């Protein structure tokens, strides 16, 4: 086996040193009846070339040359090549959690920079080193709000990513944490009147997403005023991190629960991504996850350590803020490098391109179909209602090598034939125009559908 650095002689010599006759003697503590006496029934040992070949075949089965209009919590952005060049360095890739600070300063300083940039972008005062993803960050944020306020229920906007809502439900179910939902208004934003009614004296927090699942930007300040007037905390979930380049940061929130996938993390069929929690200094002791802090060594040199660890499971065990241990460190490093590449000016310009593409698409689509929620600003996603069922439309588009928007019927049946479309800087004008043409083709034929069917019958 090519990963194993021992010759048969080495093994024999080591067994002799240990003082046993065979390797099986070392497995004697496992009762004989439970020792596997056969080969595992798994693929045989393969050469490196065969492995590459096998995965290339799988890659081919995933289809080639498609233009996508999918977003919905996983965004197709360009990834600068230096990201992979740097995260592939063994010193980052093959290091453990930086508990031994003296030989982990690279990881620790990078985390500190990551935390700092997330604070800059979100308007928060402190950010952690990462959570699993945006959905679990949102769930953990709610549990954190419960600890901070001493209250025990939460209100979640229906315009939060539906899968985030499902994860929140899973986490909350056994925490004695009743959840209620608040609907969206005509313009796609949170229904503020309904929200006001749903907050009680036991509401620990309200969780909204902005831009929300429909791509609509919420009026965070107004919602914050409302939520705070009732003594609850406001959690803002952000699924599209690039929006922070052009959309006002949710500085009035108490906790920001973010998904940083858009910052240079590959789509990768849904993971690994990079959740982050950011909050106010005063809540830091209730913040779950690792934190890197600045300090000095004996000679007065600046250095970084994991700090405030008493919040965590390896010390506080069942009383910890969360059970999280492994996080998304290497993915956070990707996001870190991405933020550094685009920086203060680039991130804004990048966000602006996303805005422009979506504005162009929404404008042109609206000539062929109904674009919902026009009454509020949006970032780079929008909901399109068609005469044709979106799944039928999508199979038609697929024939033209286009992956259409995400059908919403499963989660929002009241929106009818609606789908969520996304444009990023990588969406070309010609692809948008092609979709418009195909949309109009159907709408035209729908009008003349009956006569045509008769023609076919004849």
């Amino acid at each position: 086996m090519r990963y194993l650095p021992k010759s048969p002689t080495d093994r024999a010599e080591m067994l002799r040193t240990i003082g046993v006759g065979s390797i099986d003697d070392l497995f004697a503590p496992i009762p004989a009846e439970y020792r596997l006496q056969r080969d595992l029934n798994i693929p045989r040992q393969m050469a490196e070339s065969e492995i590459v070949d096998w995965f290339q075949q799988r890659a081919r089965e995933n289809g080639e040359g498609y233009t996508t209009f999918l977003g919905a919590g996983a965004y197709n952005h360009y990834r600068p090549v230096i990201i992979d060049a740097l995260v592939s360095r063994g010193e980052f890739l093959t290091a453990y959690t930086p508990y031994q600070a003296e030989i982990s300063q690279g990881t620790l300083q990078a985390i500190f920079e990551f935390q700092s940039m997330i604070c800059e972008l979100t308007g928060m005062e402190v950010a952690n080193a990462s959570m699993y993803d945006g959905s679990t960050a949102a769930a953990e944020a709610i549990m954190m709000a419960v600890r901070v306020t001493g209250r025990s229920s939460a209100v979640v906007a229906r315009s939060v990513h539906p899968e985030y809502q499902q994860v929140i439900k899973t986490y909350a179910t056994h925490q004695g944490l009743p959840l209620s939902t608040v609907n969206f208004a005509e313009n796609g934003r949170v229904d503020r009147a309904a929200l006001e009614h749903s907050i009680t004296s036991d509401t620990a927090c309200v969780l909204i997403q902005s831009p929300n699942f429909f791509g609509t930007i919420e009026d965070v300040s107004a919602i914050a005023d409302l939520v705070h007037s009732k003594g609850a905390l406001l959690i803002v979930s952000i699924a599209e991190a690039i929006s922070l380049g052009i959309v006002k940061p949710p500085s009035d929130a108490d906790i920001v629960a973010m998904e940083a996938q858009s910052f240079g993390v590959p789509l990768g069929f849904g993971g690994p991504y990079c959740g982050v929690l950011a909050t106010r200094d005063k809540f830091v002791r209730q913040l779950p996850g690792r934190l890197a802090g600045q300090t000095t060594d004996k000679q007065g040199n600046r250095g970084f350590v994991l700090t405030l660890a008493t919040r965590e499971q390896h010390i506080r065990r069942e009383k910890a803020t969360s059970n999280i241990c492994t996080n998304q460190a290497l993915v956070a490093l990707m996001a870190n490098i991405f933020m550094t590449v685009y920086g203060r000016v680039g991130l804004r310009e990048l966000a602006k391109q996303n805005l422009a593409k979506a504005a162009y698409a929404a404008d042109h689509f609206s000539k062929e179909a109904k674009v919902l929620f026009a009454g509020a600003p949006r970032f780079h996603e929008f909901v399109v209602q068609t005469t044709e069922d979106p799944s039928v439309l999508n199979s038609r588009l697929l024939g033209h090598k286009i992956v259409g928007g995400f059908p919403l019927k499963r989660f929002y049946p009241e929106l009818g034939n609606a789908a969520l479309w996304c444009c990023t800087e990588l969406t070309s004008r010609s692809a948008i125009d092609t979709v418009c043409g195909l949309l109009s083709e159907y709408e035209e034929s729908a009008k003349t559908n009956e006569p045509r069917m008769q023609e076919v019958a004849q």
Partner: protein
Amino acid sequence: MSITKATRHISQNEGLIFEKSSPGKAAWKLPPLDVPEVDAEKLLGSSVRNDLGEMPEVSEIEIIRHFTRLSTWNYAIDLGMYPLGSCTMKYNPRVNEVVVRLDRLANAHPYAPEKISQGALRILRVLSDALIEITGMDAITLQPAAGAQGEMTGLLMVRAYHESKGNARKKILIPDSAHGTNPATAAMVDYAVENLKSNEQGMVDPAALAAQMNDDVAALMLTNPNTLGVFEHEIAKIADILHAKGGLLYMDGANMNALVGKARPGDFGVDVMHLNLHKTFSTPHGGGGPGSGPVACKQILEPFLPSPVVITKPDGTLGFEYDRPQSVGRVRAFYGNFGMFVRALAYIMANGPDGLRQTTEDAVLNANYIRKELTGTFDLPYSTPSMHEVVFSDKLQGKNGIKTMDLAKRLIDYGFHPYTTAFPLIVPGALMIEPTESESKEELDLFVEAMKSIAREAENEPQTILDAPHNTRISRLDETAAARKPVLRWKRPS
């Protein structure tokens, strides 16, 4: 002292990225916009953002140098032995990194139609089948993002199972040698934690378990081999005691590296368990993550698996099934850390059944070799046979005020990453050493030599150890100051 492995090298100073920033520098260039420009202020109104504060402005070469210099301050498996007990720091094969970056795997959208996701679905299926076979279980979910989330998923399934029988039960038994995540997880799913005291061999005592077992106990969470690296040889009896009273056996698979290809938890009575792909199956730790914590279970628990699951459709293609009424729900968005699945499967394929078995045998051989060579030099609190890791204590070195962490810091000077210190909690001053199969005899001999040399220093020149490390870029950091007045982000000096 004789340090043969490590020597000093050039260490570049490097400030924070913010300190290199100045207006007008850039590492980005966007293509010309092919649609009309927009007026952001007009489109977004009061929601527009005009300033990104202190975000850095630097050039590409500066970014490359910045992160490359930072990287040289890290120790890594690629540099040498990383014997962190319980963490399984094994070689991370490079072919894994190549296949995961194949264009149509790396750029596959999770909501892409199933018709053009067959390759990704096939990877989920083949890995699932392999892990089911390796664990001897009946079904699996790959969704959990890491071991701790796997534990949560497993306990949610335990709870759902008991609820389906009419009584969710109240508590989880956890041995005192367990990882901190176990009790933290039990608390997250609203189970009370009841401590189970280890016996003199550092194992679960079946008699004590029988005494504590009753209808309120939902499950026992057991790590096997346990955190002392000892196989719980009464495991079948333990399972029987639980099952007789309707309880379930949860296995923390953190130490699966001692079992793969040699024994299967499903065969010795385990009902549900998680795996750590970032430990046993070679996916990189990446400085703390990402991990992946699949949960495998017996048939009785299958209906409760998180949604969705991969199914074969009538036309023979693969797809996701969402309609699972008894499911515990979803534990994260999408399907799990797919990138880790690709890597783990590539590892399994590179090994095959014979390679995986040899891997396990070498891991156990290495741990026992270290144990043999260092027994006597260091105190061995439990003489029970070791599997893949060995736990010593600092008792013999303690007389000069030297603790396990001091010995660990000195090990850095010798060119090794420290072992796990002060865990498991049942061994005061623990040195928990897990070499994994990735170490050659030469590297092990250097390690043994270093540990013996440090033990001699503890006798003759304790101050050298107390002041260690000596050869690193920085010396021991003031953790107290960091915790008292936390500085958790950079701010422009005023």
